[in-house]
Structures are given as structure tokens and as C-alpha cells.
């Protein structure tokens, strides 16, 4: 379509005599950038008027609400910062870490100095280290700060075996912790033990207890990786929930497809 034809088309539009096909042609020209909206003077005038429309002003109560919210958030941040910096907690953690280090050193020392040491002795020492780690982990899981609880969950990494007490604590965290990052870390910490049927069953039960889309997604992906078909009902419930975000639904549908 040459310039003259385009001009003629616009003229016909402005006279109000264009048919649907010609309107479609105009839209195509607009979409491809051949013409701009400014070519339609009358519409431009209306658009200008829309831009000049008064849309009112917010009242003082919006300011009040916003600044109250901001102050609360700043206070929360400051108090979190102060708590993290309380030397008492750091000191406790450092002492616990130091004890762990010393115990590990003793264990390694025993092992190196006494190559003839029996497997039983080495096993006994490594059990002691694991027990200490577990104790630390259980103690840290009760801390108020999310960072401490994250440390606790991460302590399970590197443990070859964990006691039922630890897995129960991890499930309590996965199902109840108020912080999504801690819950996700707990799920990650439980992943190496999914060979145990009881752990898998507990994970399936956990799906229904989650309200965070991130944790729901992570669980769905894990179920797909494990091919855990017993989780299908629980995942379907999340799909049927109106509150579940569309993006999460799509991912869960993919996971369900993988298992079907």
C-alpha cells in the first residue's frame, strides 16, 4: 500500500465510511508502525482529553497509612538487626561451633595417630560428633531468628545418617516454620533421606499443609523426581484451589504429567 492509498484510507476513516476490512487494514498499519496514532486527529483529541481528566487526589489518610507502615517496617528491621548483633547469641553459637571443631579434631587425631585403631573406635567417635551436631541443630531450631534456624537446618548436611529425632524436627520446621526460606531449606535437608518410605509418606502429607506457592512447587518437583504417585491427590487439591497462582498451577500440572 503506497502513501496515497494510506492517506485515502485515513481520510475515509475520518469521514466515518470505512468498513470492517478497512479498519483491519488500519490496525495492521498501526501495529507495524507504518502509521502512528497521531494520524487520527479526532482520536488524538479524545486521548488528550482523557489525559487531562481530573482523577482526584488521595486524602491525608493514605499518607498516614503509608508512613505508619514504613515506620513499622523500619522498626522491625532495626530490631532484627539488633537481635542478630546480640553478642550473647553469637557467643553461644561460637562456643558450640568451637566444641564441635575440637571434637572433630580429636576424632581425626585419633584416627590419624592410631591407624591400627579399630573400625569400632572410629565409628564411636564419629557417632559422638554426629550426636553433638544433632544437639546443636535441635537447639538452634528453637531460635527466634530465621538465620539461626537456617544454620540449624544446614547442619544436617554432611551427616551420613540422621536420627528420627532430627527428621521429625525437620518435618516440624517444614510444616510450621513461619519463614519460607527455612521451610525450603528443611525440604532440601530431607531430600537425601527420601529412600526411606516413611520420609516419603510424611512429605506427601506435608503437601496439604503448605500455603506458600514456593514450597508447594518445590514439593511438587520433588514428588515428580521421586515418581511418588501417592502425592497426586494432594497436588490435585492445590490445583483446585482458587488461591493457587496460575504459574504454580502450570508447574504442578507439569509435575503431575511426569508422574502420570
Amino acid at each position, binding site marked *: 500500500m503506497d502513501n496515497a492509498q494510506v492517506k485515502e484510507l485515513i481520510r475515509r476513516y475520518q469521514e466515518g465510511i470505512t468498513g470492517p476490512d478497512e479498519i483491519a487494514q488500519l490496525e495492521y498499519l498501526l501495529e507495524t508502525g507504518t502509521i502512528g496514532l497521531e494520524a487520527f486527529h479526532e*482520536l488524538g483529541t479524545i486521548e488528550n482529553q482523557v489525559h487531562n481528566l481530573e482523577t*482526584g487526589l488521595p486524602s491525608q*489518610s493514605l499518607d498516614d497509612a*503509608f508512613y505508619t507502615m514504613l515506620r513499622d517496617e*523500619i522498626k522491625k*528491621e532495626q530490631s532484627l538487626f539488633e537481635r542478630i548483633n546480640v553478642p550473647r547469641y553469637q557467643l553461644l553459637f561460637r562456643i558450640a561451633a568451637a566444641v564441635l571443631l575440637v571434637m572433630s579434631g580429636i576424632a581425626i587425631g585419633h584416627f590419624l595417630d592410631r591407624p591400627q585403631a579399630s573400625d569400632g573406635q572410629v565409628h564411636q567417635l564419629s557417632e559422638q560428633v554426629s550426636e553433638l551436631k544433632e544437639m546443636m541443630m535441635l537447639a538452634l531450631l528453637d531460635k527466634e531468628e530465621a538465620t539461626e534456624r537456617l544454620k540449624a537446618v544446614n547442619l544436617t548436611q554432611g551427616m551420613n545418617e540422621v536420627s528420627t529425632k532430627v527428621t521429625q524436627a525437620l518435618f516440624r520446621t517444614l510444616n510450621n516454620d513461619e519463614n519460607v526460606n527455612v521451610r525450603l531449606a528443611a525440604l532440601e535437608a530431607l531430600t537425601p533421606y527420601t529412600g526411606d518410605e516413611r520420609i516419603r509418606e510424611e512429605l506427601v502429607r506435608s503437601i496439604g499443609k503448605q500455603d506458600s506457592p514456593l514450597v508447594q512447587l518445590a514439593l511438587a518437583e520433588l514428588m515428580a523426581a521421586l515418581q511418588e504417585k501417592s502425592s497426586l491427590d494432594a497436588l490435585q487439591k492445590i490445583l483446585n484451589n482458587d488461591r493457587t497462582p496460575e504459574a504454580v498451577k502450570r508447574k504442578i500440572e507439569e509435575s503431575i504429567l511426569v508422574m502420570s
Partner: protein
Amino acid sequence: MKSNPDLEALSDNTLMIQVRDGDLDKLSLLFERYKKPLYGFFYGMNKDAELSEDLVQNVFYRILRYRNVFRGDGDFRVWMFHIARNVRNDHFRKDKIKLKEPVERWNDKLQASEGPLDEAIRQDNMRMLSAALAILPEEKREVLLLSKFQNRNYRDIGEILGCSEGAVKVKVFRALQELKEVFFRLEKRM
């Protein structure tokens, strides 16, 4: 709130990055910059002053809550209007409030809000345009209001709506055509 010219000059993205990095006070500057356009956007969509204020507050609440995900490589306004659309959609989804009202009801509202007939023609026209805008289907009303509050930056609007710049122009074209038709329809009934 006292204004500081140095701070006023900082770009939106710079301020938001500072907020993200812990300087939460800087959010107040962004609030001051955008409370009116956001309020205007919501009010244009809903015609409800109290609800519009609540939605503006929710936008800033989400900005504060999700500050850590702001990467700073895009335009803050685009990000903010993304949030604004989500906040509004969530509100109506949650409360299952009807988004559309029949034309007749808007005519009633228009009549109820009309002043004496001898008011200035321009004011009448603006009121009628406002009423016509309120009657438009939601997606058409939205694209026109985004054009207003994004200063016709159709590329940015495309980013907000998830479509091309050309597609936005077509949407604006269609919305303006319908607005014109509704406007004249209302005018005939006057």
C-alpha cells in the same frame, strides 16, 4: 515531609535499589512521586476513592515486602504498574466483586452527579468523558489510563501488559474508537 533537592534528583531505580539494600526511608520519596498517579489510575478504574487509597497502600506494601526481588535493570515505573495491576486483580478476585456494571447504572450515576445544566460546556464534556470512560470494558479503560499515566510510552505499556508496542497502539486505537462512540451515545441522551 521536607523535600531535599538532591534526593529529588535521584532516579526511581537508584532510590529503589537503596530501598532494596536496606535504606527503607527512601521509599517515602517514591511514595511521594507516585501516590498521585497510582491513585489516579485506580480511581479511573474503580471510581471509588477509599478503595483506590487502599490499593495504593497495597502497592507500596508489596514494593516493601518484595524489595529484594527488584533487580534494577528494568524501569521502576513499569515494575510498579505491574504490581498495581496485580494488586487490583487480586482485590477483585479475592472479594469476587463484579468488575462491570451495566450501562444503565452508570447513566444513573451520571445523572445523579450532574450539576445544573448551565454549567460550563467544557466541564460537562469532561464529566461525560469521565462517565464514558467508566462504561468502557475494563481492558480498554486500563490501556487508556496507562497511556495517561505512562505519558503515551507505548513500549513501556507493552511491557506492563505483556504485548508489543504495535499491539498497544492497536488497543489504544480500539479503546479510543469505543470511547468516542460511548461519548456520543451519552451526549444524545443528555
